[in-house]
Structure formats: C-alpha cells, structure tokens
C-alpha cells in the first residue's frame, strides 16, 4: 500500500477547508475548486485527501454536512462551519502564522 505524496504541508488542508467554508457553505467539489482558484492553481487538492479531510472534520464536529439541491437541480452534500469549527480555524490560523513567520525569519537570516 503506497502512501500518497503529501500534496500540501500536512495539516494545512484541514485549515484551508475550514477557511473556505467560513466564506460560505459548499459541497466537496466547490471546496476543491475554490482552493485552486484562490491560490491561482498553485495548490492542487488531492481528491482523496479532500474527502478524508471533510469526513474527519465532520467527525470532529468542526463542520456539519447536509444534503441540498444545487442551482443545477442536483442533490449534493454541503458542508458548513460550526461554532467549534470557527474556534478551531482561529487556533490553526494563529499556529500557522507563528510557524510561517518562524520559517521566514530563518530563511532571511544572514
């Protein structure tokens, strides 16, 4: 059983999903499109990781899912951020910023 190449820094996908869902509730495909759009195709979401993440976040209670009819009259599962998810997003953002600035400082060191 080969392991997939991590398409992003481990754990950041969760944070990005939470962020994108904080803008508006969305279905899985929408989340993946939105991440690619916003990152201007710099980030490619592995679909397997995407659904594993969505299911895991649901289990954690950070997002909830519900079935709804799309504008194209198609039934789809939508995901929305919960209160706990908002808190979690705040925590992860803080953590990410600390990490990023630390990495930047190290790279900028002379």
């Amino acid at each position, binding site marked *: 059983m080969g392991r997939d190449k991590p398409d992003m820094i481990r754990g950041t996908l969760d944070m990005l999903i939470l962020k994108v869902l904080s803008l508006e509730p969305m*279905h899985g495909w929408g989340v993946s499109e939105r991440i690619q759009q916003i990152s201007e195709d710099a980030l490619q979401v592995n679909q*397997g990781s995407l659904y594993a993440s969505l299911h895991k976040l*649901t289990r954690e209670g950070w997002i909830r899912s519900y079935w709804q009819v799309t504008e194209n009259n198609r039934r789809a599962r939508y995901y929305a951020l919960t209160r706990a998810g908002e808190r979690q997003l705040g925590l992860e953002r803080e953590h990410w910023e600390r990490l990023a600035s630390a990495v930047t400082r190290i790279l900028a060191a002379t």
Partner: protein
Amino acid sequence: MRWISEIVFRLRATLCPGRLEREMDEEMAFHLEMEARKLLQRGMTPEEAMKQARRNFGEPMRHKERARESWGITMIMNLRNDVRLTLRSLRRNPVFAGVAIFTLALGIGANTATFSVVNGVLLRSLPFPRADRIVFLCEVRPDEARNCHTASPPNVADWANQSGSFEALGVFRWWPFMLGTSEGSRSVAATIATPGLMDVLGFQPALGRLLQPEDQAEGRRNVVVLSHDFWQSRFGGDPGIVGTTLDLDGSPFEVVGVLREGNDPPSLQPGITQIWTPLHIDPRDERHRNWRGFYALGRLAPGVSLSEARQEMESIRVGLATQHPETNAEWGLQLTTLQDRVVGGVRTTLLFFLGAVGLVLLITCANIANLILARMSSRERELGIRAALGADARRLAGLLLAEGLVLASLGAGLGLLLARFLIPSSSPWLPQGSLGWGRWNWTPRSWPSPWG
C-alpha cells in the same frame, strides 16, 4: 459537544454502514459530474470531459478507502468483512470446517464437563465459613472399620469437656414434627442439634438469637429457631416472628430466632431443614451413652492440626473405653475433614480425569494447528493475490486471526452444548447434587442412615 457528534457518528457508521457508503458514492459521483461539466464548458466533447474528469479525480476506490479510514471504524469494518469472508470460505470447505469445529468441540466439551465436576466437587468449598477446619467425627467398630457409624451425645459431651483441640463440637439429627395450624396439621422437617453445632457451622441469626446451651436443660420451655427459607415461605418474612409460639407435636415452642439465608445443615439427612430445636438430653445420663444416632462435627481450635486432634482424641477415647467398658470398649474413633468425608474417595479419580482431558485439549490444539497449516499451504496463491491487491501484512494477519476466531467461537459454542449433555445429573460415586450447573449441595448417597 465534540464527544456527542463523535458518538452519533460512530453509531451511524457501525449500525448502518450501507447508508454512509451510499452517501459517499453519491458525493463522489457528484464531484465527477461537476468536474466533467466544467471541462465540457471549456470545449471538450462529453466523452473526453468524462475521461479527463476521472483522470483528475484519481482512483475512487483509494479515495473511499481513505475516507472510510477517517471514520475511525476501519478495525470494526475489517473484522466484519473478515468474519464474513471466513464464514463463506468455511462453507466452501465443509470437510475442513467440520473436522476443525468438531475436534475443537470435543476438546472443549470434555474439558468443560470435567472441570464443572471438579469445580463442583473439589474446588468450591462447603458452604460454611472456613469449612476446611470442620472435622467429621465418628465412632467405628474396629472389625468393620469401613463403616463409619455416628456418635452418641454423652460421648461427644465428654470429648468436648476433655479435649482442647476443638473450638466447638456439636451433634445433630433429623426429626419430623407435626406443626398445628388453623387449617390442620402438617409435617415440618426439623434438625435437632446441640447449640455447639451452630458454632461449628458458623451460623448467624438474621433475627433474634441462635440456640444456646441453656436451651438444652431438661424442663426448660421449648424453643425453636426458623430457617430463612421457612420464615420466608411460611411467614412471609414477618419481622415480628420472634417471640411468637408454634404448636409442634401438640406442645408450644417459642420462636427465638431466624437464621441467615443459606445457613443450612450439611444435608446428610432426608429432606431439608425448616426448623431447629435443641436436643434435650442430659449428657450425664448414662442411658444415652449407647445411643449412637447422631452426626458429630467439630471445628478445630486455631493452630491445631488434624493429626494433633487425632492424637488427643485417641487418648480420650481410650480413657472413656476404660471408664465405660460396657458401651465403649469395642468402639474406635475416626476423624476426617468434612471435605474428605464427602469427596475423599473420588478425589484421585477426578484429578486423573482432569489431567487426561487437559492432554486431550493439547492434542486438539495440535490437530487444529496441523489442519490450518495444511490449509495454508494450499492458500498461498490466494494470500499472494491479496498482498498484490494491496493488503499489508497487518491486514493479512487480521484475516487469519479472524478465521481463528470464527473457528474457535463455533468450536467453543458446540463444545459448551456438548458439555451440557456430558455432565451427568448425578452419579452413584459422586456426592449427590455436586454435579451439573445448579447450586452446590452435598449428600453422599452412601452415607449411613442415622436410623440404621
């Protein structure tokens, strides 16, 4: 709140995995469709768009697998699948399955049955506190040493006075009374005992008091102690029962106490004991010295061993025999623990059986191991294909373990069923009632009758 959503999720996942699967299928199908629609808008033909969408999406099976892993129930699902798979493969190999399960059932059944008997007879102690300290004393004629006769109350009283080996000594026998009630009379089973017997057996009153030495004095008013069962069934557990009077054989008996539940005499006698009355005998009355119609039990004093008690009692017996040659000269005295008295003859046989069936179980295990080994060599291909399809070592080990589990469970189930029929309900050479699944009870069939 998190644990609630977690529990809800796991329940759903475990109870109706089918629904989760269908939802996941639908979700992924929707994803593919949206992707294809996007590509279609970019000017691809429908077939190209679908192909490209599939390529972009990747391997759906893998994705589903990973999503399932995130449900946190992979272990359970794998076990379920493995068990189902095993059941299917066993059905396809009925000979292997039959031989393996039947062998296991034989080994387990024989062991269960034997251990049930050993447990009932040897391991579970008699239902008395520190039952290993209780000694059975009986007077025997040297010329018929195998017949353990019972003891006479004056002798037991002398033993109690002269020996220091016993904390308590008592005698008892069974007696039927007629209980007069408003609806006429009916018989009740009594045990007539000296108060010391209740100390030997470690009885405790639930209400009132036990029999006391003063109750024995001739001319004292009659008293009676009720067994717990009799108090419950006859008087509905009336808490005011102490102080009332029962009409026994036409005489008034005052109820002075009720015993705790389970305080029953060793049932060496016919029937159960419903009431207890004291033995009204003056131990100094020599007319009774030859009345060997009682069972005698003693509780060893702390620190005294059975052989020390035997030595002391032998010298007391010799003394009494010179004092009362007309009644005691021909009588010896035997001391055995109550436990040995009950199971002594069958102990070795039972342990031998236990060892034998233990070996049978070992052989069973070796047999099963061989069977599985033989099967494995013909399954190399199958396991190879599984490994090639992506099962890792852990997963394969899990499958084999699940197979073992299924075989063992089926074998054990059948074995228990078998044991149920193997355990005899009674046997002429085992203490009666010690067999089977019921409550411990011991009455050796070969016990001499106190009447004979």
